[in-house]
């Protein structure tokens, strides 16, 4: 790089840096800073609280650890099982069985429908009075298994999980694109060497598609850390806090005008996100080694 190019590089980088600082860095600093204050609107309060909010969150808040656990469990379910489901389907489709294009498109549809619409569909499916699920159970004589799926302690968490668990269209599309871009010569060579279909998938295709799978795992984790509308529109986080996650908890805390505490929850979300990214990269890096 020549010296006279440096001012130009700085000039061209400036707008991006400025936008990043304004949109991400400044609010991030405000969230972190705000988490050390007792800041409420009703009654109007603004005073330095040190790590008081953190102490309250980790030691006194009766709901926090359940909500934290919910968030982590959903991240794990999404990163492991949801991605596995999408990857599995991609591995089936890349062999181009009859109707594979149709399946690829159909499987993507739930991912392009708005979350509000999906939530309404599930709200009606789970409705204890006229919902499809209870109607089917009644029709086959399993009335004892009928539940108010979204609003009973024992069924709410899995019921909310099912609203997104099966729809791994993005994972399938991305992994399938990666698989389809593989050099067919490599697959052919493996076949000539006598590798079975399963061996080709496991020992050839999977390692070559691993980078894309890692991307989908990261996407899955971030999706779970942002998940809000689907829970809000179905169970609303209840019953109790059974289906509340950290973003929803932040929102309800903000609604109670306890902004300092809401900022503290925001910081926890950021930290959980960073740790999750680190762990995902670590897992894939270790496997590479």
């Amino acid at each position: 790089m020549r010296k006279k190019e440096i001012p130009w590089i700085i000039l061209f980088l400036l707008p991006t840096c400025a936008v990043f600082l304004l949109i991400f860095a400044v609010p991030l600093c405000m969230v972190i800073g705000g988490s050390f204050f007792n800041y409420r609107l009703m009654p109007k309060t603004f005073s330095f609280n040190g790590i008081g909010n953190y102490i309250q969150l980790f030691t006194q808040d009766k709901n926090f650890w359940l909500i934290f656990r919910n968030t982590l469990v959903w991240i794990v379910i999404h990163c492991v099982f949801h991605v596995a489901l999408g990857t599995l389907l991609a591995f089936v489709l890349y062999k181009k069985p009859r109707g594979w294009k149709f399946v690829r498109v159909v499987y993507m549809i739930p991912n392009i429908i708005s979350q509000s619409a999906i939530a309404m569909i599930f709200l009606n499916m789970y409705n204890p009075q006229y919902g499809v699920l209870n109607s089917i159970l009644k029709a086959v004589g399993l009335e004892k298994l009928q539940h108010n799926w979204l609003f009973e302690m024992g069924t709410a968490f899995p019921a909310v999980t099912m609203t997104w668990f099966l729809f791994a269209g993005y994972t399938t599309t991305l992994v399938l694109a990666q698989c389809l871009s593989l050099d067919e010569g490599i697959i052919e060579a493996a076949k000539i060497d006598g590798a079975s279909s399963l061996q080709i998938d496991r020992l050839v295709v999977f390692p070559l598609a691993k980078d894309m799978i890692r991307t989908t795992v990261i996407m899955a984790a971030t999706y779970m850390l942002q998940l809000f509308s689907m829970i809000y529109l179905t169970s609303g986080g209840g019953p109790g806090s059974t289906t509340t996650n950290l973003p929803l908890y932040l929102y309800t805390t903000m609604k109670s005008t306890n902004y300092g505490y809401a900022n503290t929850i925001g910081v926890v979300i950021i930290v959980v996100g960073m740790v999750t990214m680190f762990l995902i990269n670590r897992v894939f890096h270790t496997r590479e080694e």
Partner: protein
Amino acid sequence: MKLRKLAAGSLVFCMVAGAMASSAFADEIVINYPTFQVGANTSAPAIAELVNRFNEEYAGQYRIEVEEVPGDENYADKITVQIASSETLPPVVYGAGQKLLDLALQADAVKDISEAVDADPDWAAMYTESWEEVNCRDGKKYASSMESEMIGYFYNKELFEQAGIDGPAATWDEFFEDLDKLKEAGITPLAMDTADGAWCTQLLVGAYLASTEEGMEFLKTKYPTDYNNEAMINAMAKAQELYQNYTTLDAVGGAYENAANNFFSGNVAIICNGPWMISDFSDESKTEAGFADKVGAAAYPDSFVYDAPIEGMFVTKQDDPALEEAAVAMVQFFTSNEAQAVALDLSGMVPASSAVEITDEILEKYPLLGEFLSQASACENRASTLTGNMVPGLEDIWDNELPNLASGASTPEDFCQVLTDFAAANPAQ
């Protein structure tokens, strides 16, 4: 070539015409008005009419542009988030019983309209004691009400007849006996809900709460922080019993819409709600033709009715004083006696001002309203709603804990303790 000249000429003409048109409207002040009183909301016809009338009366000077925000909870959330994020609020905000005035006041975002109110004798005369309680703070007038929250319940006369019930119960003992009669006749007695503040349920719980002295006192407490009192625990125990034995399966998890739908389709005999629902009984897109004739209206047992002006419209502080003036004009227009008469006529909204006469024409149009108002006027006990006095954010806890109470996963004592924990940790005063 000719074509090019023609195209260029047309463009120049459009630009000049556009510039002239925009300069003609340059002085017109636009009031962006987000509201939930749109679409299927029962107040929508009245609000649409008032917007049109305002825009006609102030043509060239002020113009209201409605921003549709379906759902009162969504509207309250939107304004709360705007207050929280220190965004400039819309010039006019409707408090609508959502505690938005106090929130906005804490953020120092509300304009004092005392001067404008006092300058208009008709407007000033509206500020009676009950008005001042909801619309004034520290002697200053901040909001102006358009309608009154006068609430009883509606019942299906046909279903009552099938169960051998003559009419609305005078005491709570009679009321619960009637529920048993309905149940014995194979009729689901009550429309209840748990979501979106559990509107129908909280009305029933609050009315039952008002049947004791302690309960009435609690119901009148603004932003209570302790729900561990005998009256509240008894009321929640009664709610638990009602959820488990006297309502529909979809009450748990359902919102007002589910409850209303059950009433409209004749699945349940009783729903608690205000007179604004009356126009829905004749709306054939919601229920069958002739349904309105089957409905009766009543005040609650033990001579109780919810009666308080709904926290009204308020003007928020703006950078542009002209926009603030426009907003004051809008509030004055929308809460005037004439506007309240229009709202009563078009949507059956009970006027907040006692100066608005309920004419024979109105009573002929809404006979059920007359039936209800005659009963309500005879009531000796009055208060505002239970959730209307909750500290901000507690309604979410209320919503999420009700399913546990309904299923028996928590006891009424547990339920009240959870409310107390939250309210005590988040006092509003």
